């Protein structure tokens, strides 16, 4: 049976290009960058076409090698997949465009391998999302993680150690996931997600299934850096090269969140994950801890990138809180937040990369007068920051809105309070930075001389950095304004019908 080849092409295009790059790199090193751009462009194109096809005709199944499930590996692209695929490939495309100058500056002699591993990482991420097979998911998870370890390790001083810790934690997470797969396999004899979801309901009271589910949740929580298991994230993302953080920070953890939603609501049915086992309430409270911890710890940071890493911990908490509340509104919020967060984090980390590229510092207190030097970059930073704070027309607000509605519906007032408090904490967080950038405190006596450090003139980041930042920034606004449309067309189909 042949069907639309897009699901496999999305994964295969970056994979093969990844291995062409070293070969081409030796021949002509300058060709690497165009090749990466080209392949990711096709990747984005295919994933958008897939999304379109899914919206029009429903779920796409693709059987690798023509083997039908449950024997062969199946790629299933439904609304949730297609949407996340489009977002991730879109982001990685623009981060790749952005990477040129930054990589030339930070890693001048590793360009060839950088791009090869970059594409491998994208392959892994897209594979995780596209596949419909539990074990295949594990393989892609490890491909993505391995590429991430390598990319993080080439960062600045503390990077190798941070990366090593990430290796240890990530491997444990992956092993737990694999154990979960093993347990499910011995009770059902299947690895296919759709097949499993049909076989499992009869076994819901088996302890083995319960243990498998627990292993899944712990493993995935490690990979997505949910609160008590987030420690690897901070150092790793802080010390990674700018481009790498800009790619990994938005995507990796969000893909983890996607896997969690997939396992909880596709492989296991909602009536198992919600009613038979108190996992949702555990998740909810962990998420509360994550949000508060992340936001408060972020306040204590003077390194902009590290602060954003704590913000990621909090943002993951948002997604987890939505899954933890587990009603329709909250899930819409959680899935919307996956998308929004990819954009917001990409935007902020890209801006940080541009700041580092231009000034070489990430210290919040050394950013003064930067709005004179990098006016556009800073404007985009403000957009991203306000979105994280949750100012309405920007996308960050809408996911928060749905989460709050969901929490109301579930009668979980504490969650509502936490969501609101966290947006206040975020406001403190980002306005502290904005204030440092934009306001130029001076002695009152100089208040009216109309002067200031006029010597600082505009010295914007190069165009190859500005365009991606601009696109992502515009994306934040558009995602916000059209969030209702997105939910109508895509997200509402991703919610399991029994919720």
């Amino acid at each position: 049976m042949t069907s639309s080849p897009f699901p496999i092409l999305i994964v295969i295009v970056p994979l093969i290009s990844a291995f062409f790059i070293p070969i081409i790199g030796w021949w002509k090193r300058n060709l690497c960058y165009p090749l990466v751009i080209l392949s990711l462009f096709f990747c984005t194109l295919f994933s958008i076409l897939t999304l379109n096809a899914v919206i029009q005709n429903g779920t796409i199944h693709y059987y690798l090698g023509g083997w039908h499930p449950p024997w062969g590996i199946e790629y299933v692209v439904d609304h949730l997949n297609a949407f996340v695929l489009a977002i991730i490939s879109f982001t990685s495309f623009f981060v790749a465009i952005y990477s040129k100058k930054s990589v030339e500056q930070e890693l001048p002699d590793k360009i060839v391998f950088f791009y090869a591993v970059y594409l491998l990482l994208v392959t892994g991420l897209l594979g995780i999302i596209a596949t419909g097979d539990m074990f295949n998911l594990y393989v892609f998870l490890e491909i993505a993680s391995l590429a991430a370890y390598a990319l993080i390790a080439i960062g600045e001083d503390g990077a190798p150690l941070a990366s090593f810790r990430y290796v240890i934690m990530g491997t444990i997470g992956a092993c737990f996931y694999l154990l979960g797969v093993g347990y499910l396999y011995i009770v059902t004899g299947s690895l296919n997600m759709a097949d499993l979801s049909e076989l499992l309901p009869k076994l819901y009271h088996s302890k083995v299934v319960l243990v498998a589910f627990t292993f899944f949740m712990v493993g995935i929580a490690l990979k997505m850096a949910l609160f008590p298991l987030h420690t690897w994230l901070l150092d790793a993302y802080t010390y990674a090269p700018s481009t790498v953080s800009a790619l990994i920070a938005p995507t990796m953890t969000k893909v983890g969140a996607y896997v969690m939603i997939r396992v909880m609501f596709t492989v296991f049915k909602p009536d198992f994950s919600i009613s038979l086992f108190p996992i949702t309430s555990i998740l909810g409270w962990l998420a509360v801890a994550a949000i508060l911890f992340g936001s408060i710890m972020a306040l204590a940071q003077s390194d902009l990138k590290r602060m954003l890493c704590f913000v990621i911990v909090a943002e993951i908490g948002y997604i987890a809180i939505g899954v933890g509340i587990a009603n329709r509104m909250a899930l819409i919020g959680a899935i919307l937040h996956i998308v929004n967060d990819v954009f917001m984090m990409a935007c902020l980390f890209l801006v940080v990369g541009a700041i580092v590229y231009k000034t070489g510092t990430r210290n919040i207190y050394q950013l003064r007068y930067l709005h004179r030097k990098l006016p556009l970059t800073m404007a985009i930073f403000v957009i991203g920051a306000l979105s994280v704070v949750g100012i309405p027309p920007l996308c960050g607000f809408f996911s928060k809105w749905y989460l709050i509605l969901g929490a109301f519906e579930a009668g979980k007032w504490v969650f509502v309070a936490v969501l609101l408090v966290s947006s206040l904490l975020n406001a403190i967080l980002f306005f502290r930075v904005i204030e440092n950038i934009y306001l130029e405190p001076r002695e009152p006596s100089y208040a009216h001389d109309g002067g200031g450090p006029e010597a600082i003139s505009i010295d914007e980041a190069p165009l190859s950095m500005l365009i991606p930042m601009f696109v992502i920034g515009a994306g934040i606004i558009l995602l916000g304004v059209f969030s209702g449309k997105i939910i109508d067309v895509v997200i509402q189909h991703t919610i399991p019908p029994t919720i």
Partner: protein
Amino acid sequence: MEFIVCKYNYWIYIVLMMIGFYAIIGKKNLVKKLVGMNIFQTALILYFVSTAAKKGATIPIVSHGHGATEHAIHAAQYVNPLPHVLMLTAIVVMVSTFGVALALIIMIYRRYKTLEEDEILKATK
């Protein structure tokens, strides 16, 4: 008692896994941590392979051509190949993880001239 003895393979894998886990958490030397990680992963492989074990069964290959006399055709006659295949893939993944981790350790060693975690932390402070 029967619970323990009859499922000895699971117990072994759990014990191995915990040894590995202990090494990851308890040891300060990075290489020992790595070894712990490997034990952890190996325990997993053992677990998978042992689930597929079957007494008196043969390999799931239909020999042909070279005058084969016996085929294992019924499922009871051969061991389940799938866990082995999965583990083959998992081993590759684990070897690559191991390789990456070793490369990282070399980088760390070059930078700090030590592999003891507390000394590294002291050096970075």
